[in-house]
């Protein structure tokens, strides 16, 4: 399923979805420690996190994640939003938990 399709199916709120939403999502990674995410996340993953700071879009870009989903209603910092836009990282927020999101994403892969 593509980024766009997953966002619609999971009823996610888009904060940055101007680019790259037609990309296929091929896996899922949950993580909040950015160095660990950098060592474990795979290209094409939907990355679920409760971090909303400036470094999140940078790490998503470096690891080539397909999308970022910020769980538990955590908001994305304005600086982070700017960076997500400039890097073209589809980014969404939701009130759902990381566990719930992962279960729902499993059904989409």
């Amino acid at each position, binding site marked *: 399923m593509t980024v766009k399709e997953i966002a619609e199916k999971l009823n996610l709120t888009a904060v940055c979805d101007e680019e790259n939403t037609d990309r296929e999502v091929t896996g899922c990674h949950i993580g909040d*420690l*950015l*160095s660990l995410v950098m*060592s474990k996340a795979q*290209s094409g993953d939907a990355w679920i996190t409760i971090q909303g*700071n400036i*470094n999140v879009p940078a790490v998503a*870009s*470096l690891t080539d994640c397909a999308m970022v989903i910020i769980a538990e209603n955590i908001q994305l910092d304005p600086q982070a939003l700017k960076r997500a836009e400039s890097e073209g990282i589809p980014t969404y927020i939701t009130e759902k938990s990381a566990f719930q999101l992962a279960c729902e994403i499993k059904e989409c892969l």
Partner: protein
Amino acid sequence: MAENTVKLHYNVDPDDFTVAGEASGAVKKVLKQLGFSPDVIRRVAVAMYECEINMVIHAQGGHIDVEITPEKIRMIHTDQGPGIKDIDKAMQEGFSTADEKVRELGFGAGMGHPNMKRYTDDLKITTEIGKGTVVDMTVLVK
């Protein structure tokens, strides 16, 4: 050989997370344009980003020199920070001296140096307390 070398230079500003990652992001774009494989690009970008973040957190910034040839990518990170007290400890997964503020930003997991080692083919750290640190990393294009 010399005409096949691309040299890049970046300054890393201290205490500014808004620009940390700019150098690794820029190198990533250059490598993509030059046609390197996604695996090589990822290894270079992650190793560089870890080092850049360390320079911002611990060392009041510094500078990075990158040399790209068809065979390898070498990244030399130089700072005038406090130096690394115990390199063996710094290489252990989970060991970190980062403060609470840094941890809240998602860093300080103690994975920085282990990630640099994991993603590069050669890692040399030269450090002197009170003087600074040079992290010299090479990724081979296989």
